[in-house]
């Protein structure tokens, strides 16, 4: 033991040098080939460097194929906006018997969406009949500040959920706005002024 350790001392070889052996060309070729195959593979699997593709998805097209359709998006947006309505009309659209008319299978909602759009825009008061039941309440101009798209979305939600109707477009809401402007009517509607402005109300 002692002997070995005394060998340590200060005897040492000079500073090491590096030899000039060359890397074999064959290895360089193999490495280049492997590197190339790897690049090719990465190129195939990189999902176009998209930020939104996470494993186990593999491509932007795959993610895009799962995106909801335009109609579903409008429906979803309308469902959120309906939060402004459900205080009176209830989350299930059933309304309150004798006070708030229902939106389910409603004669006022079915058919031409312009009528419903006009009511959302300006509000409605006075006696009306929904599906033959009389109501006499007051609805504020809840959608006065909403965009055409927002009104179209909430009407789409109401009509598709409970009335089996097609989707409402922003153009239809814009038409309703024009009709209101042309009629010169200001403020809250009643049944008579709606009829006068050209929005045919049901009996």
């Amino acid at each position, binding site marked *: 033991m002692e002997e070995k*350790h005394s060998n340590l001392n200060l005897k*040492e070889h000079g500073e090491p*040098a590096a030899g000039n052996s060359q890397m074999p060309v064959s290895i360089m070729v193999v490495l280049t080939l492997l590197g190339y195959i790897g690049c090719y593979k990465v190129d195939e*699997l990189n999902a176009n460097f998209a930020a939104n593709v996470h494993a186990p998805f593999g491509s932007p097209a795959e993610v895009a194929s799962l995106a909801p359709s335009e109609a579903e998006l409008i429906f979803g947006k309308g469902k959120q906006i309906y939060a402004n309505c459900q205080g009176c009309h209830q989350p299930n659209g059933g309304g309150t018997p004798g006070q708030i008319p229902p939106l389910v299978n409603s004669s006022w909602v079915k058919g031409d969406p312009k009528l419903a759009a006009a009511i959302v825009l300006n509000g409605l008061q006075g006696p009306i009949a929904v599906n033959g039941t009389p109501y006499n309440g007051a609805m504020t101009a809840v959608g006065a500040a909403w965009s055409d798209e927002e009104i179209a979305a909430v009407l789409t939600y109401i009509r598709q959920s409970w009335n089996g109707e097609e989707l409402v477009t922003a153009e239809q809401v814009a038409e309703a706005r024009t009709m209101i402007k042309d009629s010169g009517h200001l403020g809250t509607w009643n049944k008579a002024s709606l009829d006068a402005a050209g929005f045919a109300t049901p009996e």
Partner: protein
Amino acid sequence: MSEEETHNAPIAPEAQPEEINASCRGPVLFLFFSAAVWAVQATGVGLLGSLKMHVPGFLADCPFLTYGRLQANAWVAFLYGFAGNAGLGLTLWMLSRLRGMPLAKPGFVLAGAFLWNSGVTAAMVGITMGDQPGVAGYELPAYASRVLLIGQAFIAFSAIITYFSRRHQQLYPSSWFLIAALVAFPWIVGTAHWLLVETPVRGAAQIPVAHWTVTSLQQIWLGCMGLAAILYFIPKITGRELYSRQWAAFGFWMLLILGGWVNLNSGSPLPVWSIKLSQYASALFIFVLIAIGWNLRQTAKGVPLLGSSDLTLQCMGFALGAWLIAALFTFGNFYSDWNGLLQFTYAGTAMRQFFAWGFFAMAMFGAVYYVAPRLFSGEVDWACSGTYKWIFRLTAIGAVVILLAGLGMSYGHGHALQDGSAEVMKKALMPMRIAFLGEILFFLSSLIFLGSMACLLFRNCCGECSPMALIRKCRAAEAEGGAE
């Protein structure tokens, strides 16, 4: 710079090894001794934390001693305390030797070393108080990383002045690795400091930054310093030439390019492309493995490194083997099924520990064994000669235990995670409980390392500087004078 220019430039005469050793004495010994203190700290704190895997309630009522805080502390003490100090000390010595010039500006080194150690202390206190950035592998609070960066800059300044102090015909490969480590550290820690702690980027953007930081610190910073030591000492002690400069250059550049990309887990919540790129980098890492491994194998052909009678050579041999195994694990990460099985198990952490102790610490132990006695003038040797061997033995056994526990037992944990086995918690703990044995061995070897360093310093330094020694020297000089 062309050949002509190099030839025209005046070349300073090469300094004697003794002169270089003497110039390094104070700063390098200070760094080595600090490293020894931190090694004990790191392993001790780590043990305390790992004990919770056996006794969950142990020290549970003290908020400063949660498993998370102890683990963070242990890693900071290892990475910056032990590895930083030992690595920087060795960098200074090796650069001076390879340049054939005495260490320039040793005062800067001492100041830097003081700052560096204050930074580590600040980090440990900060973490204990609950101030960690939330990244396993990079736990520095902002104030600590600032101090560390300044301290490292001081030391790097001295190293770089030394490096440029003399034009040498050819740079030995180890100096590339050392320079790379010196340059990489501020870049890596600076990036993490700014992007994760000082002005953190948004949460979603922190994950890739954190991964790059942790991987680069390990593969590039630790890797470069450790490989520099291996590439230096194996040829030096065997008295041979390093087989090929070309192979070394290839391995070096590939390591630098790939080091920050590799080892991203396939389940990371990151876009597919960054995971695929990382897997590609991991696959290419086989080139680094081949380059380094082949070069050193050819160099040490016919020399049984582990069976050598020279302790430094034994350490370097083991460290090289450990690095190759760790590199192989990195390469294996390119295979998603394999990575997917092990990604949430102890395997990754075990490989980090294996890399830290089996490769890096082992290389440092070997290097310090060689360097430290030479820093003194005269015939100096390790005080308790036989004990240093135990540092090698204990560290080697510990590293093997951790490797086996980490890979072997984690395999079961990985399968349990995928099968939803009810035993999963037990299987998660098994490898960590076994690795605890390895950690005990690391603790013991750190203790011996500290003891040996203290012994060496006490016997030679304090002995030399004590009043009695001075009087003895004076008398000897007088006697000599009288004789003449």
